[in-house]
Every structure is written in structure tokens, then in C-alpha cells.
């Protein structure tokens, strides 16, 4: 009992530590970056402890000792713990990358670190909150800090992309809030656990689900509501793009999952789930097509995100009660983990390429124009994970998806997943072929003059790419502990 009480203390600490780190780094100004990195490291330790603690069962914490529904409760099951862990990993490694990316003490640097820490605090809040309105405030902190981080690139294109992102974010949040208003007026409680017991399929709930889903899908960039993403993710500084694609989208996705399968399961029927899957398939097709045509590397990676988000929604019909529910849940979790590591690695590597060559036009990319072997291998491993080749995490996720689709007899999902892998291969190999192309060097042509990219940046990209590789090897042990502990989604 004491151990469990101690472990559940991790939940409020997971929000306090990044929050206080952000506050301290803002006040300290020039030296704030070290406090921020310290907070990121401490957060990673807390996340690892949470992962270990949730193996025994879900954790809960009533803030202020006020019982729900009066107060706000925090809670984490195995799935939430994994999401918290991957956020901790990506923000820490991309944070290390940022130490070398931004000049220490510059105005950009002094704004970056507090926003980065507050972004992490918001992510952790979204993963562990059990209150619908608290999720709204978390979504706002997440969105506004992400938008502010996008503008750090400084040019007009970034500001324009950030403005579009802001408008989209505002409209989405307000649709979500209207849904919360409907639910509160219908049931009088905001707590996820309390609502799970009393929700049905009445008109207010149906409209609330539709509105909240519309808002959250807008923020998670599912086709056709993805239009704001490519500009925003491509114009942002490299570590910010990594966090945006890898983590920010998954925060709102997690809220959507809880909403569909825990808060309003009766309302979210098979028809709605199939609609999501169809949109997911369209996202995979469209995103891959645009990625194959993209002239610049960061734009290609951004469109790849549009495609990969589609896989998450492809799994929705399988998550409805049925024989494949457990496998589908595993697949969702693993897609998120693998995509986070691989996409972040790709964006960091793309940032290295852009800094070294001064541009990121794919057609002008050559084997000897890469800053180093670290970047090259990061691109390669991350790309392989995105396609879904063994032994990467992406392969494990796709394997579980295919297994689930076969179990449930949803052969069209099976076909879409395989087709998606082929399409991903098209755009990934487009980049890899260029990056491994040494013909001009062999022909004796002079190497282009490259700016120096620090080893820290190369290593950061490589570490995340290796993580996506390692995820494929530890899939069994990582997921087995979750099912024994009781996923809250499976009723």
C-alpha cells in the first residue's frame, strides 16, 4: 500500500518537474538552458519509474485530496506510462540536440528552453489527466507553446505557418470545449472515470463526440484536416519539428482515444470507427504521394507524418469490441512509440543536412554533402522504421496491425497497411538513394563546402534512430507487462 501510494506521487511530480524547470530557466535567462536540461533528465527518470510502477496496475492520484468529481484526479495505466516515457526520451534527446543547435545565451535560446519545458509539462498533463476540462487547458498549453516554438525560426514563412496553426488550433480547441460544455450540461461531471459509468448514446453525447472529435482530429492532423501541418512542421527549427511530429500530435490523439473508448464508448460505434479508418487510409495515400513529390527534405518528412498518422486511425475499427482488440491496442501504442523515435530522428538528421549544406533540396543532395556518418545512418534507420522493415519498431507495429486485421477478418485494412508500406518505401528510398549516392565523389568532383555540424547533433539523431531500431527488439517484454496490469481501455 505504501509503495503504491509512493508510486502514485510520480503523477503530480511528472507535471511539476518540467513546469518548475521551465519557470526557472526563464528567470535565469542565459544560464537557464542547463536548468532546463536538468529538468528534462529528471523527468526522464520519473518516467522510467512510472513505467516500472504501472506494471503492477494502474495508478491514481486525487489532487488536493478532493475526490472526483469535485476535484481533479490524475491516473496512469501502462499505455499512458509508455507515452510519458517516449515523450521524456524524445524531449531529452532533442533537447541535447538543441544545446548545439541554438547559440547559448542568444534571444532565441532564452525563449526556447522555457517553452520546451512547458511543452513537456503539457504533454505529461494530457497523458495522465482524468478530467475533461483539465485536458482542454493542457491542450491549450501544448498548442500555444508549440506555436510559439515554430516562430523561433524567425522568417516570414514560419510566422505565416504559425498563424495558420494558431487559427486551426483555436477553432479545434473551441469545438472541443463546446463538446465538454454539452457533456457537463448533460451529466454534471467532468471526470473520465465517473463519465465512463454513466454515459450512453443520447443526442447531447452524440453531438459532443462529433464536435470534440472534429476539434481533436483537426489538431492531430488527420486527412483532410491536415492542411496546416506541412508548412508548420517544415518551417520550424529542426528540434521543434521533431517534437511537433513526434509528440504534440500524439498528445491530442491520446485524448481522442480516451474519449472514444473510455468516456463515450456507446456513442462511438462501428460506423464512426470505419469512417476514421477510411480517412486514415486516405491520409496514408495522400501523405505518401505528396512526400514522394516534395522538393525539400523537411517538407517530405512533414508529409510522411501526415501518412503515418493515418495508420493510427486505421486501427479504430479493430479497437471496437471484438477479437482483435488487444492486438489493435498493442499496435496503436507501438505505432506511436516507433513513429515518435523514427520521425524525431529524421527531423534532427534533416536539420543536420540543412545546416551543413545550407539548403535541403533533395535533388541537390549527394552522398558527400552529408555532414557525417551519424546523420546518414540516422536517416537510414529512421527511414527503415517508417517503411516497417524488420527489426525496427515500425515493423513490430505493422506486424501487430496485420495480425489484428487478419484476426478480425478486415482484409481491406490488411491491404491498406501493406500498400502503405510500399508507398513509404518510395519516398524513403528517394532520400536514401541520394544520401548513399557517391558517384560524384567517385568521379572526382570536388566535395561541396559544408558547414561544420557538431558531433552532439549527429549523435542525438543517431540515438533516436537506434531507439526506433531497439523498439523492434523489445516489443514483447515492453507490451507484455501492460496487459497483465489492466489497460483501462479494455472493458
Amino acid at each position, binding site marked *: 500500500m505504501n509503495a503504491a501510494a509512493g508510486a502514485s506521487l510520480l503523477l503530480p511530480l511528472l507535471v511539476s518537474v518540467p513546469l518548475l524547470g521551465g519557470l526557472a530557466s526563464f528567470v535565469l535567462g542565459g544560464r537557464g538552458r542547463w536548468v532546463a536540461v536538468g529538468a528534462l533528465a529528471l523527468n526522464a527518470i520519473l518516467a522510467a519509474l512510472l513505467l516500472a510502477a504501472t506494471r503492477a496496475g494502474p495508478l491514481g492520484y486525487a489532487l488536493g485530496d478532493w475526490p472526483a468529481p469535485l476535484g481533479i484526479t490524475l491516473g496512469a495505466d501502462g499505455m499512458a506510462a509508455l507515452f510519458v516515457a517516449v515523450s521524456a526520451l524524445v524531449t531529452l534527446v532533442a533537447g541535447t540536440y538543441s544545446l548545439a543547435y541554438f547559440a547559448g545565451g542568444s534571444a532565441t535560446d532564452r525563449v526556447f528552453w522555457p517553452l520546451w519545458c512547458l511543452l513537456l509539462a503539457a504533454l505529461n498533463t494530457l497523458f495522465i489527466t482524468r478530467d475533461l476540462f483539465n485536458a482542454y487547458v493542457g491542450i491549450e498549453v501544448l498548442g500555444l507553446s508549440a506555436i510559439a516554438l515554430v516562430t523561433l525560426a524567425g522568417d516570414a514563412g514560419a510566422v505565416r505557418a504559425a498563424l495558420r496553426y*494558431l*487559427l486551426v488550433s*483555436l477553432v479545434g480547441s473551441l469545438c472541443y470545449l463546446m463538446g465538454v460544455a454539452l457533456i457537463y450540461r448533460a451529466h454534471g461531471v467532468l471526470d473520465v472515470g465517473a463519465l465512463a459509468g454513466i454515459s450512453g448514446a443520447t443526442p447531447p453525447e452524440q453531438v459532443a463526440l462529433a464536435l470534440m472529435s472534429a476539434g481533436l482530429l483537426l489538431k492531430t492532423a488527420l486527412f483532410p484536416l491536415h492542411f496546416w501541418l506541412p508548412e508548420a512542421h517544415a518551417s520550424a527549427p529542426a528540434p521543434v519539428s521533431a517534437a511537433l511530429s513526434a509528440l504534440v500530435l500524439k498528445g491530442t490523439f491520446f485524448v481522442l482515444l480516451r474519449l472514444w473508448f473510455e468516456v463515450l464508448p456507446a456513442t462511438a460505434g462501428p460506423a464512426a470507427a470505419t469512417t476514421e479508418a477510411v480517412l486514415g487510409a486516405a491520409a496514408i495515400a495522400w501523405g505518401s504521394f505528396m512526400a514522394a513529390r516534395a522538393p525539400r527534405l523537411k517538407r517530405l518528412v512533414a508529409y510522411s507524418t501526415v501518412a503515418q498518422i493515418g495508420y493510427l486511425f486505421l486501427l479504430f475499427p479493430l479497437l471496437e469490441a471484438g477479437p482483435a482488440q488487444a492486438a489493435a491496442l498493442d499496435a496503436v501504442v507501438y505505432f506511436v512509440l516507433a513513429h515518435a523515435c523514427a520521425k524525431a530522428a529524421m527531423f534532427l538528421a534533416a536539420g543536420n543536412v540543412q545546416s551543413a549544406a545550407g539548403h535541403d533540396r533533395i535533388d541537390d543532395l549527394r552522398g558527400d554533402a552529408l555532414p557525417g556518418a551519424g546523420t546518414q545512418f540516422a536517416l537510414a534507420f529512421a527511414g527503415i522504421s517508417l517503411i516497417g522493415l524488420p527489426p525496427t519498431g515500425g515493423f513490430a507495429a505493422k506486424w501487430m496491425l496485420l495480425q489484428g486485421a487478419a484476426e478480425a477478418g478486415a482484409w481491406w485494412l490488411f491491404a491498406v497497411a501493406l500498400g502503405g508500406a510500399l508507398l513509404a518505401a518510395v519516398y524513403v528510398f528517394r532520400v536514401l538513394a541520394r544520401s548513399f549516392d557517391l558517384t560524384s565523389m567517385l568521379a572526382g568532383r570536388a566535395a561541396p563546402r559544408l558547414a561544420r555540424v557538431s558531433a552532439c547533433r549527429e549523435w542525438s539523431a543517431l540515438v533516436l534512430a537506434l531507439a526506433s531500431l531497439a523498439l523492434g527488439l523489445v516489443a514483447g517484454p515492453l507490451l507484455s507487462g501492460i496487459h497483465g496490469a489492466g489497460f483501462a481501455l479494455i472493458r
Partner: protein
Amino acid sequence: MNGTTIFTVCGILLFAIGLYGALAARPLLRRILAANIMGNGVFMVLVAGAYLPADGGAATGDPVAHALVLTGIVVAVSATALGLQLVCRLHELASGDREPDP
């Protein structure tokens, strides 16, 4: 047609009008203001539902709904402020001069 219904209907109308403005208007400033109006609509719907006619004699409102709206107002103001600042910055970067939106 009591007070709750009137305010609820007004809130819904504001939400719809704001949504249209945020999606369809072209000047950026107008879209930001439309999003504000959308927000006001949501708050009105929340507060309209907070009125409790007779609960032990005194007519009090549901305090949690009021607190939610207060929080929402601060969040909306913050988002609007960021939007306005970005519009100013865009104009400065694009034309080298701070001009308000027409």
C-alpha cells in the same frame, strides 16, 4: 422561454457565426476576432447551463461552470494576444512596417 433557453440559443448562434468567420473570412484579424466570438458562444452555453432556479431557497449558480468559464476567458485572451502579435510580426517581416490590418 426562460433565461436559460435564451442564453443557450444566443451561445449557439455566436458559436456558429464565429465558426463561419474563422473559416471563411480573409483578413487575418477578422478570423482571430471570429474565433473570439466562437469562444464567447461556448462560454455563454456553459454559463446558461449553470443557472439553478431553486436549490434550497437561494438561487445560486453552479460554481464549477463559472470557474470553467473564467479559465476559458483567460485562455482565449492569451491565444488572441499571441495571434495579434503574430499578425503584427508578419506585417513587419513582410513589408517592413507595422500597419494594422484593413
